[in-house]
Structure formats: C-alpha cells, structure tokens
C-alpha cells in the first residue's frame, strides 16, 4: 500500500510539474500529452497490477511485473540512445556556430 501511495504522489507531482511547464510555454503540448499519459498509466498499473498479467501473457513472460520491467529497460535504452544522438547533434551545431563566429570576427578585423 505504501509504495502505491508513494508512486501515485510522485506521478501526480510529475504531471503537475509538466503542466506548469506547459503553461509557461517551455514545452510543446504533444510532449506534455505523452508524458502525462505515461504517468497516468503508471498510476493505473500501480493500483491494478493484475492488468500487467495481460501484457505478460502477450509477451510470453511469467509475471506481469517482469513484463513491465523488461519493457521499461527497452524503452529507457531507446530514449537514452535518442538523447545521446540529439546531444551529439547539438554539440556539432555549437561547434559550427563557434567556428562561424571565429571566422567572421577575423574577416571583420582585416
């Protein structure tokens, strides 16, 4: 019971924080929608853990909790990969900007 209350409180907190960011126009509506749906699903599953058994049966895993665990790992690694790729892209763009500024400044000096 304690873990269910703690996870619910945490999820509500995360959704609240996301909505506040949306109000300040710091994130897109689509991101908020996906993020909120994810945490609503977390609340739902923490109170109805038997629902994960359907997922377990579909994935041919013994327990529902194991199915959620395996899926989480896959999703986390995918998100991590996307994040690294995005960071590398931003890193490259910063370098291009820094280079352009260096060359422009030099050309303006001469």
């Amino acid at each position, binding site marked *: 019971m304690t873990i269910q209350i703690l996870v619910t409180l945490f999820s509500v907190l995360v959704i609240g924080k996301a909505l506040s960011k949306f109000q300040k126009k710091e994130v897109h509506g689509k991101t908020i929608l996906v993020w909120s749906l994810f945490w609503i699903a977390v609340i739902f599953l923490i109170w109805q853990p038997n629902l994960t058994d359907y997922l377990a049966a579909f994935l041919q895993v013994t327990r529902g909790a194991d199915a959620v665990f395996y899926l989480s790992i896959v999703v986390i690694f995918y998100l991590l990969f996307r994040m690294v790729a995005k960071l590398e892209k931003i890193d490259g763009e*910063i*370098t291009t900007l820094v280079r352009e500024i260096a*060359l422009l*400044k030099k050309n303006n000096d001469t």
Partner: protein
Amino acid sequence: MNIWVFIAAYNEEQTIGAVINDVKTVTSTIVVVDDCSRDHTGEIARAHGAVVLRHIINRGKGAAIRTGTEYALAHGGDVIVHFDADGQHHAKDIPALIAPIERGEADVVLGSRFLQDSITNISNTRKVLLKLGTFFTWWMSGIRLTDAHNGMRAFSRVATERIVLTEDRFAYASELIDEIRRLKLRYVEVPVTITYTDYSRQKGQRSVNAIAIGLKMIWKKLLT
C-alpha cells in the same frame, strides 16, 4: 607553394611564442586557433605575428583544426601543416614533411616518431600506449602506420578540401586516418623528432582519454 602552418592552442602561453618563432624560420603564414584559452595564448600568438582565430567556447582540437583549415583554404593555402602548440615538434622537420607533396608523390604526409626512433624523454607507458593506438588504428581503418597519433602532418590543398572531419575532440586523429582510407588518398610517413618535456607531458592527452577515444571509435563504427 603557399605553405600554411596551423597550430591549435589551448592555454599554451608558456610555449606558443617560442613555437611561432621556430615555425617562422620555415614560413610566415602561421594560423593559431585559440580554443578559448583562459590565459594570454591569443595575445602572445598575435604579438609574434601569427593570424589568430578565437573560439568563444572551448570545442576541442578536432574542432580547432577544422576552423584553421577553413581559414587556410579560404586564403589560398596550397600545403597545410598541422603543428602542436606545446613545443614538442620542431620546425626543422617541416621541409621534409612537405617534400612528398611538393614532388606530387603524396596527398597526405604523416609525421612518425618511431620511423627512426626520433623521440626523446618518452615514458614506457606512453610508448606502449602509442603502439597500442597504432595497432588499434590498423584494426579499425586497415591502414598500417608506425605512429598513428602524431600531431605533425601535412596535407595538399586537394586532400584538405576532400577530407571531412566531424569529431571535435582528440578522436579526430583516428577519423583522419579513416578518411585517408575512404578517399584513397596517397599517404606517406616521414620521420619527425618529438621532444617530450615536463610541460608537454602535463599538457598531453591522458591515458584514460585514449581508452575513451578508442571506445568512441568502436561505437561509431558499429553505428555506421
């Protein structure tokens, strides 16, 4: 031929003046890319007569090399020489380095400290690491060199225009070898003298970084 010597520098105020003076004995076209040094590297380089380009954020040696290369190409460089800022290279080696390009025999000339064992004050750990790096480069790119990570190199204008570097940090050195293979450039190694000092050892790449670069190159290879 219009020879441009290009020096990437980060916090090298102790050595940059002497390095530029040394290079001036060979050519007067010297470009220093000050990679956002926190000391007076840029001012000293300018005072010694080099063209100085400054990165407003530190981006690494690979990024600095690309900045210098773009500038040299835009201003008519025929041969572009990479030279380290920490004083371990010697300008007297530049004529031999660029000679194969001037004779039209090579597109890229790579300096090697192991061809004639022209190296002083190197630690055994460093020597083993450099040999491992050479073996790793051979394994990854298929190009067998005696010294894969020597910062002293020369490129013809055509080679410089074709080579595409994307790595901002030290991994650019391995990427460069990959590019030589990809573009089927004619390359040759020539002996150059490397003098390690306490200063250059302190400034040089750390062993742990070399491992990180190796892992990054494997990762990149797996993705492409």
